[in-house]
């Protein structure tokens, strides 16, 4: 049965509509899977897939219509209808896969065959049900001239009994297209809305965060113990998180608990200790509350305070106990507010007078610098256990442990979940891209983070965007206590990158067999003492890395490798702890065993000795002797 050109066109248009829906679904899934900023934004990916897949969709859709014979003409059996729907679905899914593959290639990524097949399955998950639904539902809505016109053709010959075939009603082009467009748009919008990818709405949200103030001991990197005061998520076990749980989305999660300008933030703060505490979010970098966003709130011992406040201007904020020593003991965390207009991964919304950011920000990270003084911890655990204020003058505080996001050197440089940016290298000639790093100093020491590999651009200080035209390119950034600096790290190397790129200028990625396609650059603090721990253990202080990947596949492999290394480290650590526990148990048993077995042995020996040989108590022996002497000689 031949198809008309109109039917082939209709097949092509239907495939394009299905492609749009499948593209939204593919972009959403890719965005969800993109760890550490390996993917561009989902919205741009959706548009890219739709545009790049449109032409293949038209061609494949027409081909599917041709292969399936005549379209949805009356009298068509249901099974044929389903088969034709499957062909159109396959055509649309194929086009979506082509679009996704082209997008990936243009982004400089690799294209493994497995990924193509997987994307085809993902796309079919949308196109197959949608095409089938259209094939069966569209005719019911439509009526009409086409049906009327088609009826005589389908009528039986004169005189023959009218048959009652298993038919579905005919459709019209308008009805078909209306329903198709409606279904595709609904699917696309639904998928995007489900992941929060749609542009901002005017409606403000209320986001609730529940924190509990608590305290506890924590292993320090030299395996001694430190006492911390801090926050944890209410309802979770264990002691305080260090640093406290984030309020908002500090990255690199694609989406989680975002606070946007104008939202309402509700905090439920529970004080689970025997001391009173305070809670402060200060807009400036001052120690005291000079321009507070919130507080200082008083949270009495054992009580809960429920407070709501409007989210301030986009930026990075520090929440903390208002007393400096409590902050140094771990009572601090970040609140990240994102701009309503652009919503994703950018420090602030563009506005006149603000520094413009001609860059695609792939992802955001937050680095919280903290430091710890064991003396302060011991005082908090002992002398001042029930006191809000630990009497220990600030000039006496000498931190000996330095952290990024609660981890020291070796751990922090392997943590892609919170700390290590893993960035696909910028494609030459395309828009500049990089990552946003929110650097926060919650400690007492002044730090000076130094990035190897490239310079960073300071774009915001203490939640105030830099002025228009003020481009500050730095490789070392001074960080006073309580400062919050947002910097952009470009996704390429600088000319003076160290470690140096390979000699091949077209392929500036180290060919390290352990990290294929990845170049690793360190970030360390130039305040030298903070590179160490416990008064000299190097490099167990404030150090981490950033990784530049040759392509998306290398980035994904690198992330997997770090996750595996972290899991192995946990196993090794647990094994060491087990050995120590075993040693302690053995020693305890040996110490306890010195007294008891002796007694048991003596008692057992007495039991084993024949009755007549047992030693009698002196009194009984004497009595027996006298009795023997009193007896007549004969009896004896």
């Amino acid at each position: 049965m031949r198809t008309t050109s109109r039917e082939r066109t209709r097949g092509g248009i239907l495939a394009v509509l299905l492609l749009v829906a499948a593209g939204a679904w593919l972009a959403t899934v890719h965005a969800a899977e993109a760890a550490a900023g390996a993917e561009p934004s989902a919205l741009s990916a959706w548009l890219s897939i739709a545009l790049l897949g449109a032409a293949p969709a038209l061609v494949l859709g027409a081909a599917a219509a041709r292969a399936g014979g005549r379209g949805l003409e009356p009298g068509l059996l249901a099974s044929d209808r389903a088969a034709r729907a499957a062909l159109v679905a396959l055509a649309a899914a194929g086009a979506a896969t082509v679009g996704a593959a082209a997008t990936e290639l243009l982004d400089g990524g690799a294209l493994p065959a497995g990924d193509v097949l997987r994307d085809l399955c993902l796309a079919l998950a949308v196109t197959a049900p949608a095409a089938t639904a259209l094939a069966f539902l569209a005719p019911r809505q439509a009526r009409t001239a086409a049906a009327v016109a088609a009826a005589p053709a389908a009528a039986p010959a004169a005189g023959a009994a009218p048959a009652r075939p298993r038919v579905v009603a005919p459709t019209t082009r308008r009805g078909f297209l209306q329903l198709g467009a409606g279904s595709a748009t609904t699917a696309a919008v639904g998928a995007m809305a489900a992941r929060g990818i749609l542009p901002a709405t005017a409606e403000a949200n209320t986001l609730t965060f529940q924190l509990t103030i608590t305290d506890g001991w924590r292993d320090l990197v030299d395996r001694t113990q430190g006492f911390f005061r801090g926050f944890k998520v209410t309802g979770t076990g264990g002691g305080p998180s260090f640093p406290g749980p984030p309020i908002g989305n500090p990255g690199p999660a694609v989406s989680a608990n975002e606070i946007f300008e104008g939202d309402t933030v509700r905090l439920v703060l529970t004080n689970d200790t025997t001391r009173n505490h305070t809670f402060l979010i200060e807009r400036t970098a001052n120690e005291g509350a000079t321009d507070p966003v919130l507080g200082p709130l008083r949270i009495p011992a054992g009580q809960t305070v429920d407070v709501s406040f409007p989210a301030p201007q986009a930026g990075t904020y520090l929440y903390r106990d208002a007393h400096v020593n409590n902050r140094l003991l771990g009572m601090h965390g970040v609140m990240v507010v994102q701009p309503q207009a652009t919503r994703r991964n950018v420090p602030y919304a563009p506005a006149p007078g603000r520094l413009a950011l001609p860059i695609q920000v792939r992802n955001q990270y937050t680095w919280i610098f903290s430091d710890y003084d064991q003396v302060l911890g011991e005082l908090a655990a002992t002398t001042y256990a029930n006191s809000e204020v630990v009497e220990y003058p600030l000039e006496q505080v000498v931190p000996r442990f330095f952290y990024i996001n609660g981890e020291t050197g070796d751990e922090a440089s392997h943590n892609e979940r919170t700390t290590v940016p893993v960035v696909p290298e910028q494609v030459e000639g395309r828009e500049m891209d990089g990552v946003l790093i929110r650097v926060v100093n919650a400690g007492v020491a002044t730090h000076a983070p130094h990035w190897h590999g490239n310079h960073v651009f300071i774009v915001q200080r203490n939640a105030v965007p830099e002025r228009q035209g003020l481009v500050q390119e730095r490789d070392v950034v001074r960080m006073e206590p309580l400062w919050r600096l947002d910097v952009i790290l470009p996704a390429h190397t600088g000319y003076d990158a160290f470690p140096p790129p390979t000699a091949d200028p077209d392929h500036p990625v180290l060919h390290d067999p352990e990290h294929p396609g990845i170049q690793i650059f360190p970030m360390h603090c130039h305040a030298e003492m903070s590179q160490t721990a416990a008064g000299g253990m190097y490099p167990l202080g404030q150090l981490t890395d950033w990784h530049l990947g040759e392509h998306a596949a290398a980035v994904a492999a690198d992330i997997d490798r770090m996750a595996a290394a972290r899991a192995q480290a946990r196993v090794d650590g647990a094994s060491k702890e087990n050995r120590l526990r075993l040693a302690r148990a053995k020693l305890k048993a040996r110490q306890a065993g010195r007294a008891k077995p002796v007694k048991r042995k003596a008692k057992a020996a007495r039991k084993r000795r024949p009755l007549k040989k047992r030693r009698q108590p002196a009194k009984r022996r004497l009595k027996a002797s006298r009795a023997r002497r009193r007896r007549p000689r004969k009896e004896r």
Partner: protein
Amino acid sequence: VGVWAAAVAGAVIGASALTDDGPATRAPGPAASAAPAGPPPGGPYVVGDRVRMSFGVASVGSVVKVTGPAYAMGLERRPGDRVFQAQLTLVNLERRAVVYDPKLVTLAPRRGVGAVTIATGSADRGRIEALAAHRFAIRFALAPGVPLPQLRLRDPAGGRAAAVVLGDTRGLDTLDLAEHHPAGQPPTGGRGR
């Protein structure tokens, strides 16, 4: 059927990707333990335990195997001897300086233990300032096959020595004196720091 099978597979893959919070969720900072991780009353103590002293707290931190050039060891080794280092952290919670004489630290049993050096660093003759923490490095040589001894810590105020078990030699980290990396190898990005 094939199209529908692939569609179902795609739906499952997509749903699992959307519900999997793995890479897209930030883990909070490492949590501290709920209760003080103290040793049983009266010991025995192991590495990391806090030993109460009259002036504050003492604790033995990491124990490492020391490798590297002989001249950097800081002690005389007999042929075949292995060298180990334990770190002793002393926290002075008094509001006056205290003196913790290195002689208050001994190793027991002595069998198989060779030369011992105790470096007090800037704490001259063991003097620790008021409200301060300081670390002593205890380095000792051990004959082949001899297990790690216990570290005996005596309180300057007198009383019985506290014995700290150093564990066994298996799985110890290595301190290479040539490279100064505690774990024997630098972290991933250690090149060129």
